[in-house]
């Protein structure tokens, strides 16, 4: 049983000046550590306080109506909430197979190690590109390149509500693709870490009973690392819901509700970035209300992610 240094310090007799310095330093670190808690509580309290007026005026109606009209002072955030959920979930749907597939490809021995490390490095660097630069790229490169394909989608699947509008530039689909680019590195990095943590005994046992590389991956290695992967996916979902700049620049910032993925839309974060600086009156409060909804969504997702990693982790 190793001795805790904490107890050792208590055993020694020390001059009072040293004791005071130590106590002072201890309390200083406690204070700095508490900053985290203070900031978190302040964020929640300030945003909640700011949204009280709008909550009183619109109540639950705010969440299910899509009329965002500063002229008539009538606010409903359905468009932004729908946009937030749809863009983050659809981007997750695309990014999860890509990210987990990439993670498998660079942790299992398909290609030589230097090549694997290079792919890993490149994915990490992708995460370092600022979102505003991705937004710029999306405006000038991605969206024009994508439009012919989206137009084709529209004319082929006109009857499905998701493709019912003609793409006219910025819209939800380019925003979704930019989000994929942004959350892909998170999913890949976390999946890679959890795949690497699977003990070698499990692999050896799988190969020992005659499984191929892929049946070992699918039936042994992936199930063993699933908690980490799901945790990573949840973190990525939180990031996607809160992502602001790239989405603001490419989603079109329209407050007219539309089911269509090809139409311009809005997300809570994008709406805040666009309107918060110039808002006044109950628009500020309504934006705060929307911000509060966003905080709650990301909080729930992040806390779930932490719980999943903690509770679901398999005991090998």
């Amino acid at each position, binding site marked *: 049983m190793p001795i805790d240094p904490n107890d050792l310090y208590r055993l020694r007799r020390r001059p009072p000046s*040293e004791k005071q310095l130590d106590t002072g330093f201890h309390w200083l670190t406690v204070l700095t550590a508490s900053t*985290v*808690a203070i900031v*978190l509580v302040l964020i929640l309290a300030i*945003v909640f306080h700011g949204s009280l007026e709008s909550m009183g005026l619109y109540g639950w109606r705010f969440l299910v109506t899509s009329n965002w009209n500063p002229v008539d002072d009538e606010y409903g955030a359905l468009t932004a909430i729908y946009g937030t959920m749809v863009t983050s979930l659809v981007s997750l749907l695309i990014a999860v197979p890509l990210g987990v597939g990439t993670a498998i490809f660079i942790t299992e021995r398909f290609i030589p190690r230097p090549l694997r490390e290079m792919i890993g490095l490149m994915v990490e660097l992708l995460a370092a590109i600022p979102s*505003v630069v991705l937004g710029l790229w999306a405006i000038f490169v991605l969206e024009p390149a994508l439009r012919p394909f989206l137009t084709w989608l529209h004319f082929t699947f006109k009857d499905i509500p998701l493709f019912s509008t003609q793409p006219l530039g910025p819209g939800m689909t380019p925003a979704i693709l930019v989000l994929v680019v942004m959350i892909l590195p998170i999913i890949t990095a976390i999946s890679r870490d959890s795949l690497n943590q699977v003990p070698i005994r499990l692999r050896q046992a799988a190969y020992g009973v005659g499984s191929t590389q892929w049946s070992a991956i699918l039936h042994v290695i992936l199930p063993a690392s699933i908690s980490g992967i799901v945790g990573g996916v949840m973190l990525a979902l939180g990031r996607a819901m809160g992502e602001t700049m790239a989405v603001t620049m490419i989603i079109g910032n329209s407050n007219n509700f539309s089911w269509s993925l090809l139409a311009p839309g809005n997300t809570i974060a994008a709406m805040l970035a666009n309107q918060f*600086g110039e808002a006044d009156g109950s628009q500020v409060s309504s934006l705060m209300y929307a911000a509060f909804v966003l905080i709650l969504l990301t909080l729930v997702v992040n806390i779930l992610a932490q719980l999943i990693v903690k509770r679901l982790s398999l005991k090998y």
Partner: protein
Amino acid sequence: MNSTITQASRPIPDLRYKPTRSRNVFGIALTSIAGLFSLVAVLPLFLVLSYVLYKGASKLSLDLFFLEQPAPGLEVGGISNAIQGSIIVTLIASLLAIPIGIGGGVFLAEYSRNGWFAQFIRFGTNVLSGVPSIIAGVFIYSAIVSTRILFGHAYSAVAGGMALAVLMLPTVIKTTDEGLKLVPDDLRRAALGVGASRFVTTIRITLPKASRSIATGIVLSIARAAGETAPLIFTALYSPWWAEGIFNPVGSLSVLIFKFATMPYEVQNELAWAASFVLVAFILGLNLVARWINTFTSR
């Protein structure tokens, strides 16, 4: 004798690899899919970087770094106001977040590894790192900007730095915590053995020992902060001129890119690309520095 005869009479199983077996076909198919996915995953990096390089590098000139941005309609100008503002805001954020973060990390790793308060702070750190960056902006706007708490100033570089600090703080705490946990307890006992106090042990022994992994985390968090836009839009706001002090609005590269990207003028769009090039070069440079520091640690 008998057994060797029966073994020989049994047909020898064919152990060669047969690519047409269904399990092998399945394996090859999945391998190709995974390989394809990896290609798709690294493709955006090349697409974005090459385009930023192509559009931005051609605009590089001394004017870019030394002139203020052009007035609307004019051709000649640079992005020096934004570069200067970015440096100021990132510096303020670092000055706030690094000491507080290291202090918090020291508390978690040195004083209370598993106490309830430490667990709570660790949980809070994870939650805070998941808070969307725009919320940090909204928070600082409501707490600092709209209340004019900073000596009557509203939008200011300090407010922008505070918003960025909120985002940097969790990373600094986490890397300090993890870096310190890797320092062997033997060192702490040895320091105690020669009569060092807790404070001296932490400052002279454990922190220097963990300095490289902490430095890696700090450099990465600075890189992230330098590229953030959302927290700055309504805290540091923007200024088309050189900064007039830290209690006034300042420009920043990221907000410049955001503003200029959507302007209908060619000159401004070109400057947005040039600013992207400068920003991406700076951030990727910092990332490589962090990686370089990190290789020292693992050695």
